[in-house]
């Protein structure tokens, strides 16, 4: 399917260029692209001829589905995981929206293939009217659209446990993505089913091969929970839960149950594996915090970052992303001297609740060794902590909801590396 249009386009382009007598060059190699992610895929159009002057011959014809420029090749990594994660290349993006095909994934039994014509959502348990809803039914309810991030509870763990200087933003904190979601408020569906006042919790269950199941307090439905069927304007991608998923703004990724097939109202939590022995946080004194849903405020500089190399002294934008699972980001401070001095960075995008914001600080690099840091503050007054502060409160063995200040070291030769010890 994909072979034919590409070869035809190449032929047409090649013939047209040949006819016009223009010279051809090949695409730049990966090594020549300074800001390419560390683990790139081979550009799909790498074999395609590039005219020296694209104004001297007609370009390519229209196609049913667009492709990225052959000069850019952002990719999730690692791939091939059934029970693991594939991280978003945060360094490849501008703005705040994550392209749907690059949204991070963390699956516990692979990505199921589900026919939307037969998939249903069952709402039962402590309800007056047990309901079965198809995707077509869900689309007849009044829709709502919001931008929210989804972040894995374990985002940032590997950069803590096994840090190395040669880590990209993707490898450091790539288990987060930010999308525009469209769907139905869960409160609307609960009213439709007549949820009884005795219901305090509900089980959300997915239709994947582990029947992913999490208990959620009913109060989240009264606040902002959604059942969504669209992401960035198109149907959900299979990896994000096609045809429907639960979207609990600001809460750890795992509880945003994908491939949602069943909701059961109850008085108590069900105590599934994922909310007891899995996504729980050991605390000093032998205790373990459970049902720790909210993601704490966090930020990450995405440029300059490894593997970039600054070509010389002068003005450089220090830019990155900030978010909070408890509300709105109110400010982001940037330091270029390892935290001795902080400056209030510019917020480039609207600051809405539980969504990413992009920050920018114009930095005049004098060519000396520098340590770049960012620090987010949310509308609760919560300030993203330093690593030492977080370790002191939670103990070194706890690494879910891990949100320490991140740092990048800029060497005098312009190379940038991840600095784990902040």
């Amino acid at each position, binding site marked *: 399917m994909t072979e034919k249009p590409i070869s035809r386009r190449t032929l047409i382009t090649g013939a047209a260029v040949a006819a016009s007598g223009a010279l051809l060059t090949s695409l730049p190699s990966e090594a020549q692209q300074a800001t390419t992610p560390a683990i790139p895929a081979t550009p799909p159009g790498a074999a395609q001829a590039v005219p020296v002057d694209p104004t001297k011959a007609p370009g390519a014809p229209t196609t049913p589905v667009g492709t990225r420029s052959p000069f850019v090749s952002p990719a999730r990594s690692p791939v091939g995981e059934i029970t693991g994660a594939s991280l978003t290349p945060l360094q490849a993006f501008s703005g705040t929206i994550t392209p749907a095909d690059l949204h991070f994934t963390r699956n516990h039994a692979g990505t199921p293939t589900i026919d939307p014509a037969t998939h249903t959502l*069952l709402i039962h348990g402590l309800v007056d009217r047990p309901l079965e809803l198809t995707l077509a039914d869900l689309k007849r309810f009044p829709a709502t659209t919001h931008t929210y991030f989804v972040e894995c509870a374990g985002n940032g763990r590997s950069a803590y446990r096994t840090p190395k200087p040669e880590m990209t933003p993707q490898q450091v904190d790539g288990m987060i993505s930010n999308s525009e979601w469209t769907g139905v408020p869960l409160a609307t569906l609960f009213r439709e089913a007549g949820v009884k006042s005795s219901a305090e919790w509900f089980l959300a269950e997915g239709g994947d091969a582990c*029947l992913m199941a999490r208990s959620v307090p009913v109060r989240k439905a009264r606040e902002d929970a959604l059942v969504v069927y669209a992401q960035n304007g198109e149907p959900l991608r299979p990896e994000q839960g096609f045809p429907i998923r639960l979207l609990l703004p600001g809460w750890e990724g795992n509880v945003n149950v994908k491939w949602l097939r069943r909701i059961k109202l109850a008085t108590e939590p069900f105590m599934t*594996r994922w909310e007891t*022995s899995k996504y729980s946080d050991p605390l000093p004194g032998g205790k373990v915090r459970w049902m720790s849903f909210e993601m704490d405020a966090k930020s990450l500089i995405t440029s300059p970052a490894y593997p970039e190399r600054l070509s010389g002294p002068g003005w450089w934008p220090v830019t990155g992303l900030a978010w909070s699972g408890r509300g709105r980001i109110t400010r982001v401070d940037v330091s270029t001297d390892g935290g001795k001095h902080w400056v209030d960075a510019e917020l480039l995008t609207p600051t809405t609740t539980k969504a990413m914001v992009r920050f920018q600080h114009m930095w005049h690099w004098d060519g000396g060794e520098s340590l770049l840091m960012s620090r987010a503050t949310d509308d609760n*007054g919560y300030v993203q902590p330093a690593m030492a502060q977080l370790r002191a409160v939670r103990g*070194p*063995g706890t690494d879910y909801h891990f949100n320490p200040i991140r740092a990048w070291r800029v060497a005098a030769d312009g190379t940038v590396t991840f600095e784990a010890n902040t």
Partner: protein
Amino acid sequence: MRSRFVATTLVATLATAVSCRLDARDDYLGDKDPKQFALGHAAAPAQMAALDVDVSPNGAGLPSGSGTAASGAAIYAGSCASCHGDNGEGKPPYPQLIGGPKGDVDFSTDAKIPRTIGNYWPYATTLFDYIRRAMPLTAPGSLSADQTYAVTAYLLSREGVIPDTTRLDARSLAAIQMPARHRFVDDDRTGSRGGKNVR
């Protein structure tokens, strides 16, 4: 004058009533949506029962059937050991199930301290629920209720939670007090103790 006023009011009232009925809106509490849209259809009891696989800590949802550690050992060897190891020691990325330190353990001091069934699982019912949902990874849902009780009994006995002679069924499984139950505390990052505080 008066009769005309009454007539006008009557017409206006009727018009309002008709328009209300036409768009079927129940504008209660300022919400413009109706209470119900009458979408979807009533779930059939048989269909609900077929999907209703969850198990609660009080034992609700556990099926009939039973199993012992002796029969569970054979099932474990055949269906579980290839990922979790012959003795439940785990084969990364597949987790260790058996053999974590018991007693007064502070897991926050070191992420390498094994979190196993006997020291980190607060409810025994969770074990049955998880195995039934998700295990074995390559053939989830392939174990019968008896086999699931048996594997659960084997794992719990290997962790010293129950004697290896115990026959597990819905009643005996729900009655088990797990050693880790006391560890678990609610999230204190919000409210008066949380908010702006790092916790």
